[in-house]
């Protein structure tokens, strides 16, 4: 599973992209976030307030209850500020 971080989430995470293999019990975005938070202090800080984090699975916006599978591309980023 490919995980991407953008903007200040990337800065806090300390990396922009990683390939991960979550444990078997991780079935949705919320579960993935809970597991990622255990992996580093930076990731724990990045995900401290999920109200300011947006999630995309395979480049479509999803909610925290969205299911994830091994081949997915999961991205975390703040509310967008383009235009």
């Amino acid at each position, binding site marked *: 599973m490919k995980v*991407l971080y*953008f*903007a*200040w989430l990337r800065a806090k995470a300390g990396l922009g992209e990683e390939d991960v293999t979550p444990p078997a019990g991780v079935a949705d975005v919320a579960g993935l976030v809970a597991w990622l938070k255990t992996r580093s202090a930076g990731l724990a800080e990045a995900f401290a307030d999920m109200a300011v984090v947006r999630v*995309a699975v395979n*480049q*479509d*916006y999803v*909610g925290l209850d969205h299911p994830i599978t091994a081949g997915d591309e999961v*991205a975390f*980023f*703040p*509310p*967008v*500020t*383009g*235009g």
Partner: protein
Amino acid sequence: MIRVQAEDFDPGAEIARFNAGNGKVGGICMFLGLVRDFMGDGTGVAGMTLEHYPGMTEKQLAAIEAEARRRWPLEDALIIHRYGRLQAGDRIVLVATASAHREAAFESCHFLMDWLKTRAPFWKIEHTAGGDHWVAAKDSDDAQAARWETPADGA
């Protein structure tokens, strides 16, 4: 049509292509977004960088364009969005729509900008003498975008 690019673009040349009309176009509406001098000191040296999510950007912009074409009778539609380092006064985004009808051109152009603002994965970081600052999203942008929600939009 969607274009995501680091290079600048020429609004006149883009509009001229819309002009090469088929006689069906009665109105073209264009919006051009520029980098403001957010330092407000008039030196024009304020810089920013636009980060984006390659792939998702194109996917979301194409979806927004398709939604506009579904809602309004458009003869043409164009979204150009830049990324990378930009200075005050630089062009960031161009949205243009062409329709037989003036109201459709105005509304669809406005819609494209409002949805792009809240859905296209771009993030601005401003570079100042005091450091770099990620720009915060504005509630007013969410309110603008919400005007165009329909019952079918769900989330």
